[in-house]
């Protein structure tokens, strides 16, 4: 739908059906920030640093190079949508415990890609799997080690629970 150079896109944003208005070619990151989703942050504006990552139909994408119109009909998840019922996800909680951030500007992107990685894999994760899954994310403060610890801890706990269930 277009109106005065602007278009309206319909999407499921953090679980809620939402109509967003914006210019077709503008970066999705800007449109989402205008919605008050300040967890979407731009750093490189080139799609190489991962900071602005959102999940589009469950897949991590760089919102800074994603045109606004591409949100049409998709399920969009930002870091604001990782918690449920006001409770942080296990991954978010583990990021705090493992201190997987310093300035935390890049953290939403890491969290979303890690969430996608955890969703798309089963069982425990190796360092290599985490590195591969989070490859497109830069953290200048240097928290890669604790990010890996956090993601692996969540995966291991989940694995433990799965194994526990299997035994029963």
């Amino acid at each position, binding site marked *: 739908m277009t109106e005065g150079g602007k278009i309206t896109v319909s999407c499921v944003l953090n679980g809620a059906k939402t109509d967003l208005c914006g210019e077709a070619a503008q970066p999705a990151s800007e449109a989402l920030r205008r919605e008050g989703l300040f967890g979407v*942050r731009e750093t490189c504006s080139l799609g190489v640093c991962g900071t602005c990552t959102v999940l589009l139909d469950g897949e991590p994408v760089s919102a800074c190079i994603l045109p606004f119109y591409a949100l049409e009909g998709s399920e969009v998840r930002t*870091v604001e949508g990782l918690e449920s019922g006001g409770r942080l996800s296990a991954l978010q909680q583990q*990021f705090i415990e493992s201190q997987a951030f310093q300035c935390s500007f890049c953290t*939403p992107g890491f*969290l979303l890609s890690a969430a996608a990685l955890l969703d798309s894999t089963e069982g425990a994760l190796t360092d290599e799997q985490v590195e591969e899954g989070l490859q497109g994310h830069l953290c200048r403060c240097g928290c*890669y080690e604790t990010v890996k610890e956090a993601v692996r801890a969540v995966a291991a706990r989940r694995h433990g629970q799965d194994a526990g269930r299997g035994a029963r």
Partner: protein
Amino acid sequence: MSGTLDDSGAADSRAGDSRAAVPVAVGAAVGQSIDVLQARSRVDGTVEFALNAEVPGMTHARLLRSPYAHARIVSMDVSAAERLPGVVSVLTAADFDRPGAPHRYHGPVVRDQPVVCGRRVRFAGDPVAAVAAESEEIATAALDRIEVVYEELPRVTTVEEAMADGAPLVHDRPPEVRDHGYADVRLAGVGGNVCTKFQLRKGDVDAALAGSDVVVDRTYHTPAVQHVTMEPHVVLATYDRRACALSVLSSTQGPFAVRDALCEMFRLPSSSVRVVVPPLGGGYGAKTYAKFEPVAAALSWKAGRPVKLVLPRDEDFLSLTKHAATIRMRTGATFEGRLVARDVQIFFNGGAYADISPRLIKNGGYSCVGPYDIPHVRIDSYALYTNLPPAGAYRGYGVSQAAWAYEQQMDELADVLGIDPVELRRRNLLVKGEAYATGEIMDEAHWEALLDKAAAAVDWSPDSRRGTGPSGRLRGKGVAVILKSTVTPSTTHAAVRLDADGTMQVFSSAVEMGQGAHTVLAQLAADAAGIPVANVHVTAPDTQYTPYDQTTSSSRTTRAMGGAVTKAARVVRDRVRRLASELLEADPDDLVVSGGTVFVAGVPSRNLSVAEVCYRTRTGSISGDGDVVTSGGLDPETGQGVASDHWHEGAASAEVEIDPATGKVYVTNLYVAAYAGRVVNPKLARLQMHGSALFGMSHALYEELVFDNGVLTNPNLSEYSIVSMGDMPRHLEVELLEEPGEAGIHGLGETGLPPVIAALGNAVASATGARVRQLPMTPERVLQAMEARGATEERDALRGLEER
């Protein structure tokens, strides 16, 4: 107060000095890995970065920048930009000629940096105009409508060019020195393109070098690199014309440095300039001193509306850099491996404006001695003006450059002497009670322990330094030890307020930029006051309310601000004891405050909660102040005196594998250790070390700003590489040395960075037998060094044949 600080210049006796930092012990909060304050906001996207700030009537700013490294502005026409619908205001140099206009120049030491350029641009990226518009898009469109005619001028971009006879001058006139500058910064040797010079003289270097058994004479290079904070510079400035007051929200590490710069620029009292600082998305030195606050404030002054400026990434790359440096270093030693003399000329490329170069090149200069006892030392350290973006504070603060040179030189000397590099260092490390080259006595010295740990971490042995790994990869190990000063003298104040319910506000101007400053301050305040850490709230810096602090940099906050907060909280605790004394029928000195409860020592059943004490004594709140004010200073002729209130001590070791076909360096093992004295929060401290390690690795292997005719060619994260998760060492370990009982806190923000670069340099040289003296150690440079070594060996072999 306008940045005027203690200028005693005299060596102080720190013992018993009421203004010194305070030692602390492990307690209920101190020494515990508690979660950071407001942890939830860090993982749910709700941290209030400056980037999110909005106020009614806000306009959006963009800067027009010079495409030339050095040029005369022949003419400028902004009328078409002003006519563009949605443009609110266009700021140019001409606006500063109006009566009552602010000063057009600023700078923390000398006023040499124009808010917008007038007749001349001095680097490619120098702002020539600023636009405020209803949207960022309109502001951007307006930039294209500004017509500027330039006439290019001859430029200097390297230190060699800057020093050449008849070199074009970056600044024609001597810079205007700021009235109330920093006590430790003195200009010397100003002239030509020399911004300033620092020198250190100890003993008779020429005679000592002549008498040395061996002398190693090498030149080392490190490039300009950028901080690449994930959050760019953000400023929201509001100039209130009716009140003649300025309010600025900024992503700065130096709220008071910014306030003072704006006070001077607008000729306003400090009560009329308010600087508020939300959490920063990274600092690393990039956001020290006024940067873009002056232009945003001036634009708001002209526009009469609030102005928000968010630097695009490519412009953030032009905001400030680490100094490129060329270091010629000669070190003389005896055959037994005793260092005798060191002679250094170190040239820092300061770029177009002085910024904080005059302090940085001083620190980088005297640091060239390293943690060693060298009887004869001569150091000449220069900051040179060039037509490049300004260089300034950067995590490591000159020590990265110095240590890159001296720790490589130690290995080169070891090879010449045939002594194991670890052993050579051990024979020369400073020990407690010895004097540094500045003459100050080292009250602490832990380098030997740090070196031993670093060597052990890579299973160091003289014959295991090099080897061959899988698929023919070359393996090598390297170590490095460093010392780093902290800004001295410096001043920090803090205040706390205990409220009647037993909770506490800490009023501090320490900037939270991810290092965890506010969390450790809460921990220190809690233990000092005797209340649970959950009861402590730490304010964000707000120059209207929070007490003065010199800067959040120089690895000083946990010690200096932590000390000030500890003292302030102890004042409150003592007041609580006095109030409780009558209620508990005990002498105040016999009362203990702990966990929010006051009790009689040895009789914990005789107790009252802090809240109850306040209630029963009709006390609404209890306030306390504290400060840490250090003194020191160096003689401008000899460099003798007190360079640093205390010293940071670090060491690193590395193991690398190198593909001999490509020259690519793989870091397999990286270890970093620092002396901490007392760790306030282990998990945060560990991350400071990780950060330093990865910055060091990134500088060693990847980062370099590349200029073509003075124009930066890689101002983006696709062409400028920083370390990523996939580059991580296979094994990364960090370690912190602590003392039992009460111990002084030593900052950890930077200590691990310089030794990592040098250790990697030494590991690469061990692996290949070829030394790369120019950072970063790219595959090309590694291959070049190996080829040069090969050629040398071939030549030597041929010569050997001929001689036979």
